[in-house]
Each structure stands twice: as structure tokens, then as C-alpha cells.
């Protein structure tokens, strides 16, 4: 945990224990390894990047952590608000769903996977609120407007459907929709994938601001080293389902130890 993250982290228990503890997580697809023997701690307010080439098990790992896939082995212990640390793998599904609607958020690479394309922007942002019991239309709409503003979408577009939005706007809308319930842990799967560079830069800027201001913990999966350089405090490098190197972002990127990491860092084109 960096000094920065330590300062940012707030809340009574923040310093005492990690928000997420992963122990010996493994997932295989038949004889093929999805990911194997992954262990790490994520502290409150910390952003961790997972990098690696495609097929290295990044997304498998993220989906196992977020409860979308059932891992074959291992524990994912989340520090819940009510009961303290709980293993989310063995947790009953209703509780896990409740977590994924409140304390967790998942930003998909393709906004179409994370948004309801037939529902207006306001409805998209309001869904999580209504799922946890908000029943006042005026309040829901006010919150939706506030969040559209925070992700730099014009409030006048609140009743438009996401299909009428540009790719960058859709991604920002997806972020608003996820962060509206004030989650503590955000999973992001290639949040800037498929966007052009100027839009990527704005989105990263926005994400960084939101993460810092809300004191969020996040796990960001990406193959774009610029993204982790900007967002992540700590970095994990994966290859063939295994974690080959982890450490502080700058340390790993500036002084890569493992052969694969060296290759990865040297492959980046310098503009």
C-alpha cells in the first residue's frame, strides 16, 4: 500500500485490514488454466492494475473476483459493511447479488454489456438505486442528474437512450450507473478499450478524479500500460494464468524484473 493510498483511505476500519483478500484463487477450463494460484490483498482506497497479454487470464481472474464465474479453488474475502470479512465464493447468492448492487461495481469493456440500451440514461443510472429500495421519483431523478453532471454528460440528455450516445458517452454513463450507489470496490475490465485516444484521455482523467474523490478501491484489468500508469497504485503482471510479477506501479514499469514484463514495457510505442 502506498503512502498516498494510506492517506486517502478513510473510514474507521480503513487502516486495520484489507478490503479484499484473495487467497490461492484458481480457475481452469478443463485442462486449460484460466488463472492459477493468485493471492493478493487490496487495501481501502487502493487501485490495483492487472496487465498481461490477451489470453493471460486477466478477465477470468476479474470475473472470479466479481462473482460472475465460480472459481475452482481459493478464497475471495471481502470486508463487508455489516459482518466484516466474508468469503464471497461460499456466500449465498442473494448476499452476493446484494453486494454487487451496493458495495461492488463492474465496468464492462463494452458499454452495451453494462447498460440497458432500451432504457433512458436516467433510468440506467436510477436502476441500482431502485434495486436497493429507492422509491421517490424526484430524488432518483435528482441523483441521476447529479451523476450525469459528474461524468460530464449534459443533463438535457437524461431522457435519451444510450443508443443515441457516442461510445465515450456510453462508457461514462456506464460509470455513472455503477458509482451511483457509492460502491467501495470497482472492477473495471478494459474501461478505455475501443475508444479513441482523446476520449480515452478524458475518460481516464474523469476516472482518476472520481476514484480519488470517493476514496474507491478498484481493480483495473487492461493491456494498456498508460492506463495503469495513470490510475493504479500497484500492478500485477499476468502471463499464462500466473502472476509473474507484482509491486508498485512505477517500480514495476520502470524497473521490470521478469522477462515477460520487460518485453511488455519495451513493446510500448513511444509517441
Amino acid at each position, binding site marked *: 500500500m502506498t503512502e498516498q493510498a494510506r492517506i486517502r483511505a478513510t473510514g474507521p476500519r480503513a487502516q486495520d485490514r484489507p478490503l479484499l483478500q484473495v487467497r490461492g484463487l484458481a480457475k481452469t477450463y478443463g485442462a486449460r488454466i484460466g488463472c492459477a494460484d493468485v493471492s493478493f490483498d487490496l487495501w481501502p482506497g487502493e487501485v490495483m492494475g492487472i496487465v498481461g497479454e490477451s489470453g493471460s487470464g486477466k478477465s477470468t481472474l476479474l470475473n472470479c473476483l466479481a462473482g460472475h464465474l465460480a472459481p475452482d479453488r481459493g478464497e475471495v474475502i471481502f470486508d463487508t459493511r455489516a459482518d466484516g470479512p466474508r468469503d464471497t465464493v461460499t456466500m449465498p447468492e442473494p448476499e452476493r447479488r446484494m453486494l454487487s448492487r451496493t458495495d461492488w461495481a463492474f465496468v464492462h469493456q463494452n458499454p452495451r454489456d453494462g447498460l440497458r440500451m432500451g432504457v433512458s440514461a436516467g433510468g440506467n443510472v436510477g436502476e441500482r438505486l431502485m*434495486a436497493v429500495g429507492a*422509491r421517490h*421519483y424526484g430524488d432518483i431523478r435528482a441523483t441521476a442528474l447529479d451523476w450525469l453532471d459528474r461524468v460530464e454528460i449534459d443533463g438535457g440528455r437524461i431522457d435519451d437512450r444510450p443508443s443515441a450516445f457516442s461510445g465515450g458517452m456510453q462508457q461514462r454513463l456506464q460509470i455513472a450507473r455503477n458509482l451511483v450507489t457509492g460502491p467501495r470496490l470497482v472492477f473495471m475490465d478494459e474501461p478505455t478499450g475501443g475508444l479513441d485516444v482523446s476520449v480515452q484521455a478524458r475518460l481516464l482523467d474523469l476516472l482518476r478524479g472520481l476514484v480519488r474523490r470517493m476514496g474507491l478501491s478498484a481493480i483495473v484489468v487492461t493491456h494498456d500500460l498508460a492506463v495503469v500508469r495513470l490510475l493504479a497504485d500497484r500492478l500485477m503482471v499476468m502471463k499464462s494464468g500466473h502472476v509473474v510479477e507484482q509491486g508498485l506501479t512505477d517500480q514495476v514499469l520502470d524497473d521490470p524484473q521478469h522477462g515477460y514484463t520487460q518485453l511488455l514495457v519495451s513493446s510500448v510505442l513511444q509517441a
Partner: protein
Amino acid sequence: MTQSGQYNFAYLDEDTKRMIRRALLKAVAVPGYQVPFASREMPMPYGWGTGGVQVTAACLCPEDVLKVIDQGADDTTNAVSIRRFFQRTAGVAVTERTGEATVIQTRHRIPETPLSEGQILVYQVPIPEPLRFLEPRETETRRMHALEDYGLMHVRLYEDIARHGAIATSYAYPVKVEGRYVMDPSPIPKFDNPKLSDCPALQLFGAGREQRIYALPPHTAVVSLDFEDHPFEPSKADHLCALCGAEDSYLDEVITDDAGGRMFVCSDTDYCAERRAAGHRGDMAAPFEEAGA
């Protein structure tokens, strides 16, 4: 062909009735839960009440008195055919009087006359899944019911208000049963929704094509979904019945000419007729002498 000798009582064979009754018992035990059942082909097209007919057939006893209504009316094609079907296959007595019936099969209405203990109201249901148009996957909707994940239902109402300024859903208005399952009350007008709750009669819902049965046992609490600042409002046309002058019944709009002429009449024909027999008169009712002739 002599009918009575050819058919089993109420058309369905006893094994099928037993299967349906088992589904019904389960449905009554878990109010609002959609119980799958092995719906049979019936001698009528899907959408004409195949689910309702099967439920009615499984409930009928020889001493029952049957009433069938379609949009509140006893004399429309659907109601007449289903009534005749059971007259031929079960030989039960039929009536148009709500109060005299023991089993009432209905399409899209709840009778105006309050139901009483011992009566069974059977609804014909086209699409039993209230979440269907929001979530097309059946596996996912079942999971949502199991986990009480009903945020999406309110998203639909939110969209209504955002687009129309008020909840524009006027029929098949979603309800929550005993604080647990969200249920589609079949396409009854939302005017009828309050009658679902705490009803002394047993209410059974049959969807033939979708192969689902669900139920509301007597005196079940049924709440229409809404927002705090946009509460549920049962609505009807703001008129009196042109025939019987009723102000509290659900009205159908009838176009009477091609120059904009229209009249509003009770959709419940039995209720309207009873009121007229009791001497109530609306604006466009026939004069006394003519009516008696």
C-alpha cells in the same frame, strides 16, 4: 355424436386434472409464484383462454354454477364459446349473475359486484411474466424472482414517468403479493387492481401457451407498485354509464357514428343490467315503456 357420452367430465382426463390441481395447490401455497404445468392442447387457439379453460376444468364439480366473461361482458364471442364448451362437456349450470356463480372465468376484468367467500375467479393470462419485456431471458427472470431482484420493475415505471409525466401503464399493472413476489395480474385495467387485494374469493391465473399457473388465496395482500411521489391511481373514464348511470364502474367507450358521437357504458354487462333492473337510468337509456317491451 352425443356429447355427454363422448367426453370425460369437463373435457380433460382425470390424470391431467390431477396434474393441474397439484400445480394449483402449489400456487395457492406460494401466492404469486408462477408454477410450471404441462399445459395441454385445447380445442381453441392460444390466446383464447386455453390456460383459463384448463384451470376451470380442473376446478369444476357437477354442482358448480359457471359464469364466463370477456372484458366484463357475458355475451361476447369468447365468453359465449367457453360457456357453451363447459355446458357441453361438463353439463354444469351457467349464469350471468356474478352473485350466483361459484366459478367465474374471466378475461381482462374483475366483476364490479364484490366477490364472496367460496367463489373461484379464474383469469385467462396471455403473458404471466411481469419482467418479460424488460428481461427476455427466462433463466434470468426466474433468478430475479428467486432473489427478489425487482429493481427493474421500477425502472419500467420510472421510464413511464420520464416519458409521459405520469405512470402511463393502464392495464397489466404490476403488483407485489404479500411483500414477496411481483406478479402480472393479467391485462385487467388498473382500475381493478385494488379488488385483487384482500379478496374473499380464491383467484387463480392460468397461462396456457406459457404453461404457468399462479394464484392468490382469499384475503391475500396485493400492493400495486408505485413511487412515493407518484402514487398508484386506479383510473377510469371520467363519465357516468350512459345506460345505468353508474359512476363507480369501469366504462367502455363505444363509438356510435362517424361524426364523433360516443357513449360510455359499463364494461360489466351483468352489473349494468342489474342496475337497470333496479330502476337506475343513464342519459342514453331506453325509456321505461320501451325497456319493458
